[in-house]
């Protein structure tokens, strides 16, 4: 099992971010390196990449606030 973390250096200051959209659904098969979600800081969208291949587990749904380093999902 691999955690999906919000990278600690994804954006350059301490502003709040939100999980904008998951581009795959719960249990979907994803490839390592594929874009699986987007995180929004104000009007800037950041891609979140799959750290490994496997089945996606979503821990933080869309529209929830997220922080740098937070685990937002898992890949089994």
């Amino acid at each position: 099992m691999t955690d999906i973390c919000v990278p600690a250096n994804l954006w350059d200051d301490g502003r709040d971010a939100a999980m904008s959209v998951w581009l795959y659904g719960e249990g979907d098969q994803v490839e390592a390196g594929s874009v699986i979600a987007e995180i929004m800081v104000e009007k800037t969208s950041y891609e979140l990449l799959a750290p490994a291949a496997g089945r996606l587990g979503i821990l933080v749904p869309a529209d929830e606030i997220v922080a740098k380093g937070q685990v937002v999902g898992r890949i089994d």
Partner: protein
Amino acid sequence: MTEALVKVLADALAALAPAHECDLRVLDRAVGREDKLLDALIGDALPSGYLRIWRQAPCITVPHRFGSHPEFRRAAALSADEGRPLALRSSGGTAVALHAGVLNVSLFGLERKGAAPLDPSYRALIGLMSAALATLSIAVDAGPVDGACCDGRFNLRWRGRKLAGTAAAVRSRRGGVGWLAHASLVVDADMDADIEAVARVESLLGIVGAYRGEAHATVAQALEAQGNAGTDPAMRRESVPA
């Protein structure tokens, strides 16, 4: 007048950026080229600081997250029936009306180490656009506008009204962090119709925006109110309808 204004502004912007492309054709899928250029940037096929000046055929462009809404298909069908198909984009924000009267400007940058410098990237874009508008003697600043569609900290404002909106997308790959900051400058438009179309799409997708027409302005309105046409002979006062 719209075409002449678009040309003057595009020429001014192009003169400010050594690496740029300028395609003023009104194309159906111009929004989609943003992603291709961002990929090219990360793949070292595009220089950092590249500027794209472009236009898009009538559409409502929305961020990817709108595409996951259960009512998206219905909203897309209804908007397309009204002549404004929905076009997904990678940047953030909410719905924005694009058409021949909107000049889009996109600035691409690459950071080899560290995070994308977001505020500086917006400021760089706004600096270019401010300089271009200055050629028409239109003075602008940046900031939020209460009651404007797709509001944000980095709107381009003329007399407190929104002239252009901005949004950004960041893409991290092994080679670095590529960023795109883009702006949609309303050169000439029926703002009430644009706002109504945006609000209609957003309401179908569960977003309730209290938008006000007077929160927005166009370059044509600004030019007319300024009472002069700047430095370009093509834009002199007598060529602007009352």
